[in-house]
């Protein structure tokens, strides 16, 4: 184990602190699920500043607009730690940056990387994920949206659902069936589709948060060029799994958990009943401490995974548990928050699309959105199947008689 802060790391720490001291006031507000709204001017400026300083897209090569640093877990941890501690935004966290960019870096063509990575990391091109369909939620291999090749272009028809961000996204990475004659998993392709293409209709799905965070997307004769496919026709399942791997990490994000714990502690310090702050009451403190222990475990675990990734090591089980463990823990953090808010937290007044300025409303929105994250991106039951079968090597369920 070597976590010695080298002179270089100490310098970085000092540099980040200095950066935050100087520029922190320019940060957009922290909190909220991230990616619930299109980044505003303030968020875009902040992102540009972070990339310039090397605190966002740090390990994305310079050729694609990133900072081009060699992967270094300790650097990542130092930066995350300082931003958390200061309560300053770590930059844009959407599906484009967290899922598509690593996917393209792993399996995209050089042309696709050059074209899409730079504007995506700057927050200028916002992506949404076109996986789920009404009849294929957890069961991705059964999806029905199809793309036929007509006159040298893909022509897409079908419907997607649970598409977060679709109502303001520029692009979608879409999984659809292009080879109807091949077996289920081999007939899929992964296409990059502009959301302003003719034939795309987005209908917001009203959700429990009161915000339009999810959508249905209808695709009717949507045409995209053949080079919109990532990795190649029939390779969609493979590419989607690369993306899902990154999604699992995104959804269990330890930095987000740590940020939340930080806010939660503040909430317990400020909230009083009969004049006594909750943090002074042992049973509230005990709940906070218990969650802190769990967040610490996830934080350390993420450092381990990053370290293994930097060594090119497959973390296997370690990676597979992140989404399940992280989303459930996130829900429990917000559950403590809404309990601590008590009756005074009930007024729920989302002014527009989000209400990140009202603390109780934000916590409740997070709490409900967390439940959406437990369900979305492969529900907990699917995650547990994956952990057991792929991570622990347990036997698959026998196929039912006469089943599909």
């Amino acid at each position, binding site marked *: 184990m070597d976590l010695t802060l080298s002179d270089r790391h100490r310098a970085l720490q000092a540099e980040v602190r200095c950066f935050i001291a100087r520029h922190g006031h320019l940060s957009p507000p922290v909190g909220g699920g991230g990616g619930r709204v299109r980044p505003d001017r303030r968020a875009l400026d902040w992102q540009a500043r972070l990339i310039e300083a090397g605190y966002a897209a740090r390990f994305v090569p310079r050729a694609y607009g990133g900072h081009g640093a060699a992967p270094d877990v300790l650097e990542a941890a130092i930066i995350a730690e300082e931003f958390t501690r200061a309560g300053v935004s770590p930059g844009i966290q959407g599906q484009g940056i967290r899922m598509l960019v690593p996917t393209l870096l792993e399996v995209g063509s050089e042309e696709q990387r050059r074209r899409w990575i730079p504007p995506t990391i700057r927050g200028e091109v916002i992506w949404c994920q076109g996986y*789920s369909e009404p009849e294929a*939620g957890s069961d991705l291999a059964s999806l029905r949206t199809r793309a036929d090749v007509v006159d040298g272009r893909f022509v897409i028809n079908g419907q997607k659902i649970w598409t977060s961000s679709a109502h303001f996204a520029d692009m979608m990475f879409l999984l659809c069936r292009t080879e109807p004659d091949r077996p289920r998993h081999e007939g899929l392709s992964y296409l990059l589709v502009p959301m302003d293409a003719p034939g795309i209709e987005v209908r917001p799905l009203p959700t429990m948060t009161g915000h339009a965070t999810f959508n249905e997307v209808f695709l009717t004769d949507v045409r995209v060029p053949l080079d919109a496919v990532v990795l190649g026709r029939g390779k969609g399942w493979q590419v989607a799994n690369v993306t899902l791997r990154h999604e699992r990490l995104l959804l269990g994000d330890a930095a987000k958990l740590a940020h939340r714990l930080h806010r939660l502690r503040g909430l317990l310090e400020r909230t009083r009943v009969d004049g006594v702050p909750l943090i002074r009451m042992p049973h509230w403190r005990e709940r906070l401490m218990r969650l802190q222990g769990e967040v610490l475990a996830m934080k350390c675990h993420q450092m381990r995974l990053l370290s293994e990734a930097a060594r090119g090591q497959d973390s296997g089980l370690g990676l597979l548990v992140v989404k399940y463990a992280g989303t459930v823990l996130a829900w429990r953090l917000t559950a403590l928050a809404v309990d601590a808010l008590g009756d005074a937290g*009930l*007024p729920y007044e989302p002014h527009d699309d989000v209400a990140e300025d009202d603390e109780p409303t934000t916590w409740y929105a997070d709490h409900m959105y967390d439940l959406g994250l437990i*369900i979305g991106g492969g529900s907990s*039951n699917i995650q547990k199947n994956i952990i057991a079968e792929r991570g622990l090597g347990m036997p698959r369920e026998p196929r039912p008689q006469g089943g599909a």
Partner: protein
Amino acid sequence: MEFGPDENQRLFDAALRGFLADRVTVDSRRAAAETGGDAALWRGLCGLGLAGLLVPEEHGGTGLGVFDAALAAEALGHAAAPTPFLGTAVLAPLALRLLGAKAQRDAWLPRLAGGEIRVAAAFGALAGTTGRCALRLEHGRLSGEVAGALEAAEATHALVALPREGMALVALDAAGVTVRPRRSVDRLRPLADLSFAAVPVEVLAGGDAGRVLDAGRVVLAAETLGAAQAMLGKAVAYAGERRQFGRAIGSFQAVKHACAEMAAALEPCRAFVWYAAHAQDRAEEEPEARMLAAHAKAHLDEVGREVARGATEVHGGMGFTELLGLPFWFKRILANRQLLGGPERCREEAAIAQGIAAA
């Protein structure tokens, strides 16, 4: 001896549930969520006698008890009904019955039973609020403010718990009263912040105000029970219909066991709520009535949240949207948890009621 509702109570319950099934729909809830209420629904419920349930017959009510109110609350929770009940039909008549002088009972109870007045409830001073609560009573006039009054929309009066002096009944149209409506997480149950500038009030101070709170807790527990039962029922039904991987998702052991765990937690709650409600009606003889009320509230708060989450999860993304209306129940359960003292507070009060903790 009978543990559970008797024949009359079962008939009333069936009638109420039938009425609610006809009258409360996904669309009516949505409309109420926008406008903050469903005035016609309340009138209908008054027609069934809900307003006067706890008002003695001599004052024009049906003279029933907290047990009956709990059954009604369970049915209202099951329907996620956009209607007042707790404040105007439970807390107000009980406050008058338990704390009011005869003249006060004679004056006010008939107006409650007839649905002539509707009473909001602001119990912050009694139930450990995290919000603003600064009230002073001087020479029969109330000043100060209290946040989070329940059922203030369309209410004519408010029942305000005082720090020491019992409760105050105040007309909301009196000079010096300011009502600031607030939306709630449970949009079917808007809240209001109240402020008072030397407003003349009717002080109810003839008994133990805590007993009104106790009854309110049992009724909230009953409502959460009904809401959770509805959610579990919906989850079981949905799991029988929705197919994935070529089979009904309800045939997957993970989904079945999730439902079984919810049922195992929820089913014993019915008898618990019955018993706690019954103890309220015999509180003079039941030294444990307060402890039972606090525990019933806390326990249903916990079980309710687990069911709210679990049933939503069984519905997958569909549970997270408003398409099936599931969030109405989810949010009612979440909001009830915070009303009249959350589970931590209630458990501590249960300990105090047993002499295990110092008051």
